[in-house]
């Protein structure tokens, strides 16, 4: 019996090999494997065997049957050559066009930054864009007479208070959120604040009245200056997806002490000097420092017990560097030719 099965297998396979037309293949299949086919007949005759043989021969018969079926399917596929009635398919044709939308480059970059910091355990906060003089200046150690107010030309809101003073502003920085966050959450605290800020500046290719910043701060026991620099390096590497060369130098911001500025090796010229970096090979990226004890106190945090760092940077500027954009007006200009590139 077993020999018979193997013999018929060889017979079928030998015949199958010679077939060139699918029609003959079907005939062959019917002849052997069909309901009344020769191979089927043998299978039927298995019932006459005793239990032990039935098991043994049955296993073999099934294996052979599957083998033959596989050969037939393969042959069929080769002979029929794909779908019926299609002689040639241009596989390079595209599918139906699905329109895609685009996120604003600032949204993309801010989102990247948020991800980097949430992965380090920072909260993401927002704050009001129309802010009070108190939070935007006073509580950040910038009293009215402070020369630092020279640095920022501020949009004031035409709504005098009881004493006739203009004490509402379009926030010039995201830093007021530091104070609001300290008051709400206390220490220890780890936050980042993305958001829109405003300066009363004439608009040109490199200045706009409205741009975006990204602020971050961390307050806890024993937070040090070295921690700050380490976190900032981590951030820049995260944004630029590579190790970046930075230099740290003194800077002055009233709400930190000491204040530092972090420059990054120019991404455009690689540090050899070009118009983007004003020929110095370095780009000013981040203003930062250890939070001034007065600012901590304004935020209701015991400056004897806690220390903290803070940093801020222009996301708009960062976007210009990262994507090589040379005109800041494109960001608020709504031109889809620009926006569709992101």
């Amino acid at each position: 019996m077993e020999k018979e099965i193997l013999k018929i297998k060889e017979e079928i396979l030998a015949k199958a090999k010679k077939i060139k037309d699918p029609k003959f293949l079907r005939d062959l299949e019917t002849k052997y494997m069909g309901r009344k086919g020769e191979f089927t007949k043998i299978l039927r005759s298995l019932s006459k065997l005793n239990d032990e043989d039935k098991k043994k021969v049955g296993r073999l018969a099934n294996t052979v049957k599957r083998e033959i079926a596989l050969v037939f399917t393969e042959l069929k596929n080769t002979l029929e050559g794909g779908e019926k009635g299609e002689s040639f398919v241009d596989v390079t044709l595209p599918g139906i066009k699905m329109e895609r939308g685009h996120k604003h480059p600032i949204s993309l970059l801010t989102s990247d930054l948020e991800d980097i910091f949430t992965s380090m355990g920072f909260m993401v906060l927002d704050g009001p864009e129309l802010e009070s003089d108190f939070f935007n200046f006073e509580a950040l150690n910038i009293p009215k007479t402070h020369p630092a107010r020279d640095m920022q030309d501020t949009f004031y809101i035409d709504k005098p208070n009881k004493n006739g003073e203009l004490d509402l502003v379009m926030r010039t920085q995201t830093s007021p959120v530091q104070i609001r966050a300290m008051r709400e959450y206390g220490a220890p605290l780890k936050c980042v604040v993305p958001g829109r800020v405003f300066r009363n500046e004439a608009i040109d290719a490199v200045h706009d009245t409205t741009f975006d910043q990204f602020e971050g701060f961390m307050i806890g026991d024993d937070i040090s200056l070295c921690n700050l620099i380490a976190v900032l390096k981590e951030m820049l590497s995260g944004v630029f997806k590579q190790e970046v060369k930075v230099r740290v130098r003194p800077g002055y911001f009233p709400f930190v002490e000491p204040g530092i500025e972090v420059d990054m090796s120019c991404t455009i010229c690689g540090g050899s000097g070009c118009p983007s970096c004003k020929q110095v090979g370095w780009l000013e990226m981040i203003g930062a420092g250890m939070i001034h004890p007065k600012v901590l106190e304004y935020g209701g945090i015991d400056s004897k017990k806690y220390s903290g760092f803070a940093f801020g940077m222009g996301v708009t500027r960062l976007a210009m560097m990262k994507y090589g954009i040379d005109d800041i007006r494109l960001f608020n200009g709504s031109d889809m030719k620009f926006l569709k590139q992101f």
Partner: protein
Amino acid sequence: MYLSLDWLRDYVDFPKSLNPEDLGDKLTMHTVEIDSVEKQAEKFERIVLGKILAVKQHPNAERLQIAKVDIGSEKMDIVCGAPNIKQGQLVPVALLGAVLPNGMEIKQTKIRGEESNGMLCAEDEIGLGDGHSGIMILENGKIGQNFADYLKLKDVLFEVDNKSITNRPDLWGHFGMAREVNTFLDLKPNKSFTRINSLNVKNITPEKEVIKIEAKIENYDLCPRYMALAISNIKIEQSPEWIKKRLIAVGIRPINNIIDVGNYVMLDLGQPMHAFDFDFIASKKNEEGGEVRIVVRNAKPDEEMLTLDNENRKLNKETLLITDGKKPIAIAGVMGGENSGINNDTETIILESANFNDASIRKTSAFFGLRSESSQRFEKSLDPNLCEIALAKAVELIKKLCPEAKIASKVEDNKKFSLNQGPVIFELDWLEKFIGHDIKEERIIKILSKLGFGVEIKKEKDTKKSVVSVDIPTWRATKDISIKEDIAEEVARIYGYDNLNFEMPKVKIGVPKINKARVLEKRIRDILSAQSAATEVYNYSFVGEEQLKKMGIDYSNYIRLANPISQNHTMLRQGLSTNMIGSIMVNQARQKEIRLFEIGGIYINSDGNLDKDDKGEEKLPFQEKRVCLAVAEDKYADAHNNAKAIIGSLLETLDFKFNFLSVETASNWADQKTSAQIEIDKEIIGSINRVSKNVKNKVGLKKEAIICELSLNKLLDLIDKKGDLKYQEIAKYPRLIRDLAFVVNEKVLYNDIRDEIKNFHEYVKEVDLFDVYQGEKIGIGNKNLAFHVVYQAGKTLTSEEVDVIQKKLIKRLEERFEAKIRDY
């Protein structure tokens, strides 16, 4: 501010190996930001000395001449307009390719038909003065010599970013900078450096006391110190070359010896000086001298004065004045008066070296829009002790420049001030912890003492801890340094931030609190951009009158800017739609279908819920974030359907069930017939509007635009209310679906029909509209609606059961809406 390397050399013995670029870098890394390092000679590149061989008249122009010039390597013709050139003169010649300080590039040209191969230069053209009366005539030079070599200009200039020294009153002169350089280069201060701090006025005694000066200060808060001294036998003339050269190098125009000395001292030490002509301010005069009575006081109401720049200025009561007892003779620290200044005939001067309050000077200079070299320095809170050093130095210089000059009065010195010189005390351990790096004790002491701090480190008996005690030098004590963090900065910056070991903070890790609003914003951004192919824009938060007027928006209650810089940006937006119309217009010429969105803030003129300050009584104006979607296409129906589809897909993706509701009145700019509100759970969360024809024409909008605005806060509240998703058991029994199509009057609202069907029977589980048709076939004023009605129950429904319900439903629709059922 410019720093001259040559000037710094007075106080710093530079090692030979240090080149100017390295010094610039080191200044940036330790002290101040240096914007550029300029070699003076580079300014005069391709300018050489030439000898005029011959001068002839230009054939075609009466006022021009042609000079034949020998520059050594060649002889050339140059057309020149100045009348003062003669054969045999030595003159500066700008060769082809030279770029003059004013940016002019010398090119070969034909002037009135005659070739010109360069330019003969006047003083002003090469930045050496104001003279434009003629070409500079030079002496003792060699033909072909570089002009910079001829001038012996070998200085290097460092341009300091003034912003980086707003907190450093001590760095507004070369001496202060030299202290920094000596510290970070770790050099031993030279003799001329150490001599400065010992300068005083003890030895300045009248050689002939013919003038009595009395200075009265009304308010010592505004003027902590006023020093004055009379010097007679002055001869006003030009300063010697070495002073002029230094002043020009750092960008100050030389005027005459006395004024130049004042400027020199200011740039040297940082202390602004002023000189009055005794004759104009004397309160009493006699043959030999007389009396001067200075009063430092605030201006009276309506007081006026003519300042040096020949402007008649109306003073306000906050203006601090120097007066001669009667009339104002200077706006203190800002600008002198026209009536009292030095002139060519001045013989006796009253030299002022004073200190003024930083805030007062700032206010005054802002009020007059006058930011002088002097006011810039006083604004930074100068050290009152500097007055004395500067006065001594000025006297020294004047004596050198005018050997005949005689001290004609005692030094008048009226002062009242106190400085907080510490000590600042902290544990050495704190410093290491705060910086995060172990800096050796000796190094700390060295850094601080070189900067002029007094340092002492002692072991405390009980705790065995090292305690640092730091005395602040006067020049850092006015404002700059007062707390231990300030001291930490001094140590860290001189040590070098780049020399620190950076280390990530050691903190407990934990999942941060989620900002739900921010997460929602992000999700909406994802959905609208990825799912609905919309493009995100950022528009300004500002709007302008003209735009709002065209849109018929009442802006009387809009929040206004007090100091707008553009007519289009005078108020704060109360919605995103106005600027969004502008965004469509930016793109309408080039894009066929426009789908834009924005997520941004609006600002309302009523109290919000955020505190305005730490008192908690007042609130900030209400602000919230909105989502705005705009769809603009050529055909209204397409735009409307697409906009609704996008909003639908957005809200459904956020797992909301929503309705469009008709409104009685929509916004003024919207088409009233087609505007609708969007409702979720009985709460209106936004609106969808078509820009009206009227507004379209007024603003120049070419497309049919649908604009939809949603409140992010309301969506957020609804998400909170909804809570987390819950799995519902999959229904065990099969659904039966019946289609239902009927014609109704077009005014019958879909919402009502849908609700009727939905609520008709408990077995009706879903009602899906799948077709709307309007057309002549079914009669004008009608519409055909087609629904899938899904029946399902807690058992297997039979076809017969459903048919019975469906029949009753049809009957109800016929009764309530006069619906005419169409058969399938």
